[in-house]
């Protein structure tokens, strides 16, 4: 039994299953809902299967069609990929359960096939072992995400989606130029092969600039975040959740992967990491301030994403001296943020359905009337603020530890200030959930599945606060983090 389980190519299933069911949903719209939920549910045990394989056999490699790396396409998964796949599976399933009740029939027919394509693209991205495949999956993911943003067809949504489309195309194009440069100079697109061949040269610098700029744009790092708030705030709630939780993380993952293997060891000490750290710090502060200023919940949550993405980049300047701690912090923050932010957007969707608006000051006794939704927001907030016990706290603790050990006081101040600002903006919302609105309104019913989906995702972010040891042990498989410390 166990050997059969270990022999199944889970990595392939993770890509082909959503692709296939996405097609079927497209062809037979009647099946869309049921097939969609079943697929996202099946993804969860598939990731567990892959995790088991990695835990028992080490890093996972699968040569598609039997052709291995230089010629064929190879799938590759280590602890880092596994973590991202797990986040995708969990958030994806939660959002799918939510979406069943959320979308009306007409919208559902369009939502499910695109979402399943997006899922296939995400899984393929996290399993890719070469920079060209990463480009292909990145582009697919971006297009699917834009399509989802435009789903409602409203003027606001189309404007947001158009900006998003331009940003994402520009980003992938820039990335593609970088890929071409590297391929031209070193004759390979395989990450492992490139890692052994690259030397400090103008071509590498140019490739780093192009790929980095493209990925930063797609990750929405300050000051390239301009497209994110309108796109995330105008999309339907489950779509916003997927975008903020997963899509933004995917481009961060590529950047992290390339930095760890190709660029970091080469140019780590030359100021690029400091620049990324500075931008991250600026993002934390700017995003938090903007979130604080918002009067509408979805915009607040979207700006909070801008801030939280900033934290991920604080790890770069710290990694040279404390690689494992800093990167563990970054991926733990990414994972916790994925769960917490998805929950927050789902909460926003519930409140929008409940009261017909998402004006923070006019929330009307939500704690009494939608206790599960209010609880979900509160639990997600704990992680976003970085308070214990939560995954966000673990990530912040590790990051602070790395910063303090190196005496990086600027970064320490940014983290502390960012936490205070986050507390200010989430409690601005929570405070108003207790009070009565000036104009009471007739509430609309929110289906239980929508409340529970948000609550369970938020609970996941809190429970991560107790799972740091096993999760970080799993992420360590493949030893990808320690490799990044600057070569002597």
């Amino acid at each position, binding site marked *: 039994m166990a050997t059969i389980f270990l022999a199944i190519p889970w990595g392939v299933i993770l890509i082909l299953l959503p692709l296939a069911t996405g097609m079927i949903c497209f062809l037979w719209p009647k099946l869309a809902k049921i097939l969609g939920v079943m697929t996202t549910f099946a993804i969860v045990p598939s990731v567990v299967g892959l995790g088991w394989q990695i835990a028992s056999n080490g890093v996972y490699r699968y040569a598609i069609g039997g052709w291995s790396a230089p010629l064929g396409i190879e799938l590759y998964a280590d602890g880092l990929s596994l973590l991202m796949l797990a986040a995708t599976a969990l958030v994806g399933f939660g959002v799918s359960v939510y979406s069943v009740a959320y979308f009306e029939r007409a919208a559902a027919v369009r939502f499910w096939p695109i979402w399943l394509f997006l899922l296939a693209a995400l899984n393929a991205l996290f399993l890719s072992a070469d920079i060209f495949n990463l480009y292909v999956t990145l582009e697919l993911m971006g297009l699917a995400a834009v399509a989802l943003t435009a789903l409602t067809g409203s003027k606001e949504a189309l404007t947001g989606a158009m900006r998003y489309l331009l940003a994402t195309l520009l980003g992938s194009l820039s990335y593609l130029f970088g890929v071409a440069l590297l391929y031209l100079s070193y004759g390979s697109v395989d990450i492992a092969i490139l890692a052994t061949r690259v030397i400090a040269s103008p071509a590498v610098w140019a490739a780093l600039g192009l790929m980095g700029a493209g990925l930063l744009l797609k990750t929405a790092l300050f000051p390239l975040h301009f497209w994110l708030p309108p796109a995330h705030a105008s999309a339907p709630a489950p779509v916003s959740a997927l975008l903020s939780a997963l899509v933004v993380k995917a481009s961060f993952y590529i950047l992290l992967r390339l930095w760890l293997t190709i660029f970091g060891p080469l140019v780590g000490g030359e100021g690029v990491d400091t620049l990324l750290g500075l931008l991250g710090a600026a993002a934390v502060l700017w995003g938090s301030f903007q979130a604080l200023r918002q009067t509408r919940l979805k915009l607040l949550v979207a700006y909070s994403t801008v801030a939280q993405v900033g934290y991920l980049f604080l790890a770069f300047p710290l990694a040279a001296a404390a690689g494992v701690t800093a990167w563990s912090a970054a991926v733990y923050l990414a994972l916790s943020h994925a769960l917490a932010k998805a929950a927050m957007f789902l909460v926003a969707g519930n409140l929008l359905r409940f009261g017909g608006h998402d004006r923070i000051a006019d929330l009307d006794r939500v704690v*009494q009337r939608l206790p599960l939704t209010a609880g979900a927001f509160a639990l997600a907030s704990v992680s976003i603020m970085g308070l214990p016990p939560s995954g966000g706290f*673990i990530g912040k603790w590790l990051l602070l*530890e790395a910063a303090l050990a190196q005496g990086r006081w600027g970064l320490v101040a940014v983290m502390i200030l960012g936490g*205070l600002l986050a507390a200010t903006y989430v409690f601005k919302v929570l405070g108003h959930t207790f009070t009565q609105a000036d104009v009471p309104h007739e509430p609309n019913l929110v289906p239980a599945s929508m409340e529970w989906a948000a609550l369970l995702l938020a609970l996941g972010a809190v429970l991560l606060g107790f799972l740091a040891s096993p999760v970080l042990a799993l992420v360590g498989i493949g030893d990808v983090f320690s490799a990044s410390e600057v070569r002597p």
Partner: protein
Amino acid sequence: MNSWDAWIPLLVVASSLLPGLVIFTLSEDKMRLRTVLNLLGALVKLILVGWMIWGVYHGHHYETRLALLPDLELVLRAGPLALLFVSLSTVLWLVTTVYTIGYLEGSPHRSRFFGFFSLCVTATVGVALAGNLITFLLFYELLTLTTYPLIVHRGTEEARRAGQTYLAYTIFGGAMLLLGTVWLYTLTGTLEFTPKGFVSGLTEVHHPALVIIFALLIAGFGVKAALVPLHGWLPQAMVAPAPVSALLHAVAVVKAGAFGIVRVVYDVFGVESAAGLGVTGPLAAVAAVTIIYGSLRALFQDDLKRRLAFSTVSQVSYIVLGVAIVGPVATIGALVHIVHQGLMKITLFFCAGNLAETLGIHKVSEMNGVGRRMPWSMAAFTVGAFGMIGAPPIAGFISKWYLGLGALEAGQAWVIFVLAASSLLNAAYFLPILHRAWFREPPDAWPDEHDFGRKETAWMLLLPPVATALLALAAGLVASAPFSPLDWANLITAREFYRP
């Protein structure tokens, strides 16, 4: 050590956590089930704590360890000091639960209230049992989060504002605490509470950093302990329902802050190392200022609960002062005051709640002749008030006696003046209340009277203050009996902080 001993601290935490979580799911009308769950949890906790007191007295160790981070563990350890605070929380939780059931009868959202109430106690017990600084931090922040819904419980705009103020202070304090804790960890590589501290191994190069870390930690705890100038949230938080104020002031929030300061001085820095760094002097000065300032402000409050709130600001700093004096006798005074202040202050708040619920009295100026209408409540109030002033044989006298003696022993005579001035001020703001209540003529009609038949008020409101007043009296009368707070404070001091 048998295998059960490793789980008892966790069970103590769970005995209020689980009922709390279940209560959230109950509908409003399931009053009986809610009450049973609450009382069951409180009794189980009481039994477990009693068991551990007996065990620790006879040299057993109770410790739960769970992995939290690769190199850090979640540690719950029932040492003597932890048990002092745990037993206070447990006893007062039971009493307050009874009171709250009576107080909230018929009011809305009780399931939510009792749910957060239980979580709040869970956090307090976790703070008490925490065996290292990160565990302490975890429960300390949990306490912030779980008390917030209690403070804004009424859902008015005023309550929301008070909640925001509370958070502004406590989140800031939490950030200072986090910074201090991580910084300390990068220097020492451990956060485990040890008698006599774990920083003495650091060389002189690190001393400036240690002083800053001490300041950060004290600032973090000082917010909840309401040290001046970090006390601003406390009087505002008075909009909360009376049982919340009672619990906040007597056990949960302010006491967690004071307890944190005790932990930092004794188990993180070690009292001698702290004195060597020269940080105890400033701490004593801050405590003295807080004692006097709180009393002075209390003098001018007409709102009864606000007067009591400023009194809390003043009284809690006795604990801090006793810690900062540096000496075994003062330490005993500080430790014993953790319990004594809790018993006396909770009595006073229960009585204030009774006056508000029964007669609609919120102000001191409305209290004329109230002693004749509610003799039992006011008798309990009188015991609490005299205790606060420090009159023998009530518990407060014992605290002040040991603090004064400890100050003289440590050669810090100035503390005597602070204590004397504070006692005078205490008398100045409590005696007029008692005079009004007992010796003035009652008005023709009370502001908002409720009828309870022949009784002065509901028995569930009356029993708790009478019980805690008796406990405060007993703690003073038979202070030298075995297992009294004073006896236990002696034991802690002898076994841990001033071990020969």
